[in-house]
């Protein structure tokens, strides 16, 4: 059946849905210049996205995330992609979901107020199992808050922001290098589990400059979604082949897939009147992540006291870990036994890893740049085995190492 319409420029270099090859990766490396750079966290996220094969960015300006979109505005055309400024954050997530379904790796970046607007469509991405990356450069809230000050106040929202039962993945970088590395990881996780992935940076790391070493192609793994293996007539867009992860047929490849946010059967068609269909669907959406936690969750264990009986634990994540690293050095110099668990994957929450620490710890100190968010997850995982000492700080300044030292020693 031949199209009568004037066809778009077939020879154009603009091809966001083209497969991402080693050649494309090296093109990105060439464009980014030196192997060792001194860049902001926001920029590292842009670089990481390009190196992961992202060719579609849709966003809306918001402090302190704007730089990510500005940099991609300059660089995406150079790699045959597109950076489009949409009319609002809701449109941005809509566009990245549409783009992903049409075959392009896609991303958006925002901060608190925008992240709040995005929640309905994030739930839609989770429900329709559409891979995409959403960067939240957290800033002091609630509401307009302190636009230029970093915070960690969106951790709970990242998991619970949309309505209903769903699971997704959220990562917190601690260094500017991790902003790049975890962006690549975010894309890989999104493609592997057909799920939206949230990258939780913040206004401090986003605007801080640090040394970043760009990876070589051989140093990274670039993952693409599971493509259909069954013939078109038999293909079902939400069929569970035992892995709980469906194959994904790109729009325009002849599979005629129907994708809806309504409760649906394996065929993709609505099944809103069926309790068994809904239950099966929602359980699979959640188990898809929960049963794969071993493969998804990343933590950093600094446990010199793992074989001793008692220790003092510190659990940190994101930018706060920088203060903790310094405090831990001081505390150990003074002779204290300290085990530091740094959480990299905020969701799914590493409850086993926290529980493990709580079995050996007298107390666990949990510093956060909020009024208690990961604190609640830690409490649940600790299940009363030891004391938990929260250290909450708001207003945009990081904990000083001495504040953490004092909290650990109980002298603060």
């Amino acid at each position, binding site marked *: 059946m031949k199209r009568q319409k004037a066809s778009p420029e077939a020879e154009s270099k603009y091809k966001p849905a083209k497969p991402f090859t080693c050649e494309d990766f090296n093109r990105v490396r060439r464009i980014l210049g030196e192997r*060792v750079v*001194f860049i902001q966290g926001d920029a590292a996220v842009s670089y990481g996205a390009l190196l992961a094969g992202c060719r579609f960015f849709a966003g809306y300006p918001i402090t302190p995330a704007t730089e990510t979109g500005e940099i991609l505005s300059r660089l995406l055309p150079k790699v045959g992609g597109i950076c489009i400024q949409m009319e609002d954050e809701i449109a941005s997530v809509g566009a990245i979901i549409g783009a992903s379904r049409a075959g392009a790796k896609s991303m958006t970046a925002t901060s608190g107020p925008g992240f709040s607007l995005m929640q309905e469509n994030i739930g839609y991405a989770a429900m329709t199992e559409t891979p995409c990356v959403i960067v939240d450069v957290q800033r002091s809230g609630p509401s307009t808050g302190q636009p*230029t000050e970093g915070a960690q106040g969106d951790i709970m929202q990242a998991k619970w922001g949309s309505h209903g039962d769903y699971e997704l993945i959220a990562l917190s970088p601690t260094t500017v290098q991790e902003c790049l590395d975890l962006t690549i990881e975010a894309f890989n996780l999104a493609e592997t589990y057909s799920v939206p992935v949230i990258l939780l940076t913040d206004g*401090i790391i986003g*605007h*801080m*400059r*640090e*040394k970043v070493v760009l990876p070589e192609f051989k140093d990274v793994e670039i993952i693409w979604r599971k493509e259909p293996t069954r013939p078109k007539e038999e293909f079902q867009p939400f069929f569970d082949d035992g892995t709980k992860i469906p194959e994904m047929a790109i729009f325009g490849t002849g599979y005629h897939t129907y994708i809806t946010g309504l409760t649906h059967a394996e065929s993709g068609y609505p099944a809103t009147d069926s309790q068994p269909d809904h239950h099966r669907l929602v359980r699979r959406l959640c188990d898809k992540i929960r049963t794969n936690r071993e493969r998804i969750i990343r933590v950093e264990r600094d446990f010199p006291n793992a074989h001793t009986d008692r220790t003092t634990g510190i659990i940190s994540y994101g930018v706060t870990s*920088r*203060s903790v*690293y*310094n405090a831990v*050095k001081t505390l150990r110099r003074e002779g204290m036994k300290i085990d530091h668990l740094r959480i990299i994957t905020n969701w799914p929450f590493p409850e086993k890893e926290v529980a493990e620490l709580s079995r050996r710890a007298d107390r666990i100190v949990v510093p956060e740049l909020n009024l208690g968010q990961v604190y609640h997850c830690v409490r649940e995982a600790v299940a009363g085995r030891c004391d938990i000492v929260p250290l909450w700080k708001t207003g945009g300044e*990081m904990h*000083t*190492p*001495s504040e953490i030292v004092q909290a650990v020693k109980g002298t603060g």
Partner: protein
Amino acid sequence: MRTEIRFVAFGGQGIVLAGVILGEAAIADGKNAVQTQSYGPESRGGAAKSEVIISEEGIDYPMVMEADCLVALSQPGYDRFVTEVKPGGIILVDEDLVDADDPHTVSAFYRLPFAKTADKLGNRIVTNVVVLGSVCSITEVVGKENLVKAIETNVPEKFLGLNLKAFTEGYKIGRQVLEQEGQGRK
């Protein structure tokens, strides 16, 4: 060994760029560096602060805890941060923009004509590069060559000549002040 440098000024005086350039030079020297900043919403005026941590090892806490070097181009900035310098540290103030006497709490206190030098060269906008020249010769926290290279990649081409002159003058001023004190630094 971590070195903590803090610049304070009004918005628009270019200290954020100065911090970025310093950090880049440190990276080129093969060290680690972290640069942070804070400022208000105003493009001009308002309080601005730019910090750089330089270390041969990895840098954990990315902010200044107690500055090794404070550079002040504004009175409010100086007043606010003069007490947060290590006893063995150095303070550099602009002799026209900051009215201050040696607080005798640090090992070295210098009043330097940063803005005046920039004006003499024809444009106050290069004050921050004059500052970099002085910081380089006085503290030797980064190598001169790499600092010049970092300046070159961070300023508009048509102002390159002006900026290099500003650096050279700043460097000279720094050297002079050390020689006057009879201190040679290794």
